[in-house]
């Protein structure tokens, strides 16, 4: 993808050159418009803004478990990867997942909403907007986000930005690449893989398929396989996930993948090449099967075009050789196809949302203020 198009040469005729008065710090918001694209994924939240900021954090919010933990952390709330690191002293929430991961009280849906609020606030803060600029945000949310979640996102966003719109995340990815027609997006996240058919208008429910063959699925499969083959090895799902993120492949691996796992407390090398390959490969057939369904129910005249423009996005798409493996599977079951890997799988959604924000006319923003 062409990266963050909005930070390149400012296009458009309205671009006012730096005026003398713009240098003085004025407080009214007449000195700029900051567009913000947010991708609120179940596992990561990323932002991309028209001031060049690009940031990402794990969609995790942690609250200290007790007074001691709070004293130690010196904060009331901890975000992202830091929250994961310090999870032992925190109650963790993944506000975009259904339900609660870990908490003292099992019935605290409110706490989950509060966590969603905190996460979005942190995401917007990362954009480092100037006080004197209008902030217009488009937030890409998972296709399956509940209305409850959407309301919470809008409520919080309105506190920190001037106007906000939501859109479906895979749609944002495609828009960011100008693939508005006859294209298929495969967005592989942690909990779900979202497939979305683009045909020139806003995708409807029938254009989207959500599968659970995604990152977490691979982690579980790999963990089960390793338990069988690496006798005596001690590992957690977290270790398996980290290993996957470092070595995963489905194609083009020539050297064996050797990793150390502790056996009775002592690290020992294990060859996990075969287990890794097989676990990663398992996502391919169900994804291609779903692709087949989206292609098959499309106008026959354009099915060929659709097959030839399959976009691969999302953190889980970073498995090496996955584009090739999907193409191979498409060849056998669908008679061919071309898979295009997007350049920045992590920022694909945020960059697309940013582009939508840029292209949205002023009166629409005004009406949603």
């Amino acid at each position, binding site marked *: 993808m062409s990266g963050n198009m909005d930070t390149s040469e400012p296009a458009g005729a309205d671009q006012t*050159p730096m005026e003398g008065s713009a240098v003085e710090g004025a407080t009214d918001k007449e000195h700029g418009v900051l567009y913000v694209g947010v991708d609120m994924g179940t596992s990561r939240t990323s932002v991309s803004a028209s*001031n060049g900021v690009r940031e990402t954090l794990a969609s995790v919010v942690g609250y200290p478990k007790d007074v001691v933990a709070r004293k130690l952390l010196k904060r009331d709330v901890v975000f992202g990867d830091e929250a994961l690191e310090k999870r032992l002293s925190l109650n963790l929430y993944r506000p975009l997942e259904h339900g609660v991961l870990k908490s003292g009280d099992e019935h605290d849906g409110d706490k989950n909403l509060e966590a969603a609020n905190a996460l979005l606030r942190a995401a917007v803060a990362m954009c480092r907007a*100037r006080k004197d600029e209008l902030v217009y945000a488009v937030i890409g949310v998972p296709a399956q986000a509940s209305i409850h979640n959407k309301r919470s996102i809008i409520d919080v966003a309105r506190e920190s930005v001037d106007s906000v719109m939501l859109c479906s995340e895979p749609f944002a990815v495609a828009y960011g690449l100008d693939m508005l027609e006859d294209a298929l997006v495969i967005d592989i996240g942690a909990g779900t893989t979202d497939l979305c058919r683009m045909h020139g208008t806003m995708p409807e429910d029938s254009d989207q398929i959500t599968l659970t063959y995604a990152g977490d699925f691979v982690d579980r499969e790999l963990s089960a396989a390793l338990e069988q083959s690496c006798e005596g090895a001690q590992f957690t799902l977290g270790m398996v996930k980290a290993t996957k993120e470092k070595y995963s492949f489905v194609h083009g691996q020539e050297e064996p993948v050797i990793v150390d796992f502790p056996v009775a407390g002592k690290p020992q090398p294990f060859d996990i090449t075969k287990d890794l390959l097989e676990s990663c490969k398992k996502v391919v057939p169900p994804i291609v099967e779903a692709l087949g369904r989206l292609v098959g129910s499309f106008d026959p005249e354009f099915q060929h075009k659709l097959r030839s423009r399959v976009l691969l996005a999302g953190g889980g798409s970073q498995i090496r050789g996955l584009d090739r493996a999907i193409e191979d599977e498409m060849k056998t079951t669908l008679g061919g196809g071309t898979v295009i890997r997007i350049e920045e799988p992590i920022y694909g959604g945020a960059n697309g949302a940013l582009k939508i924000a840029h292209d949205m006319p002023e009166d629409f923003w005004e009406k949603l203020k």
Partner: protein
Amino acid sequence: MGKLTNKLQEAVKKLSYSTTVDQLKRKGIQKVNVVGLDRIVALIEAAVHRTLKARMAGLETAEMCGEIAGQTRDEFLRLLHSNESLEKAHQEMHGEKSALEEQVALLRTELQTVQGKLASRESQLAREAKVQAAEEDQHLHEEIHGLLAQRGMDDERTRGLVQEVFGLVRGHLEVERTRVTEARRKEYQTEVELLNRRLAKLNGALAATEDQLQRVMKAKTLHPGLPSVYKKVQGLDSHDSLFAKKTELMESIFEANLRLRREIA
């Protein structure tokens, strides 16, 4: 822009952090790209020039260029300066805070030792007073008894009288004793109070410094923000090759959002 270059170099230095090869290795980093400070400064300068040039298209009077370059430099220096002075205030405050903390800690130990000493002295005195009082009582009892015996009143009948007189005198004695103890206690209580007052004052100063420090830190994190490249709402470029399609999409996104707002209202 020679002065600016120096300042830039300083600024970049401040922005960088130190790490060791071991630390990098632990993070799994095997290779690093090294960029010299000069190079970074040159890059920033080049970027400033390029931006200026791009923005100057159409109004290239040298005068204007100079003015804007000047303004940019001033703004940059102002930001740098405010950052520097904040940094300085921050450091000073930190120094002040640790000095105060040290003093408070010192005073606390002093107070503790004095309190400990006083407590043990007090209990010792109490013990001594008790023994002394018992001796005195015994003596008093004997004396009363002796006095009455001298007058030939040493028999069964006077025993009750001895007790009565003894009780009366002892009561008065007890009042006197308490007064003496109280006076003595007050003496060291004053000492403790003085120490306590000093401690409270220092604690107050510490809290104030902590407050100030927090404010300075907040000011430091109060980033002025990064300006957007846009001055106005953009909207779709009418030259976009997908203009019609995108217009339609923008409308449907907007309408979907409008519906959502109604649903959750």
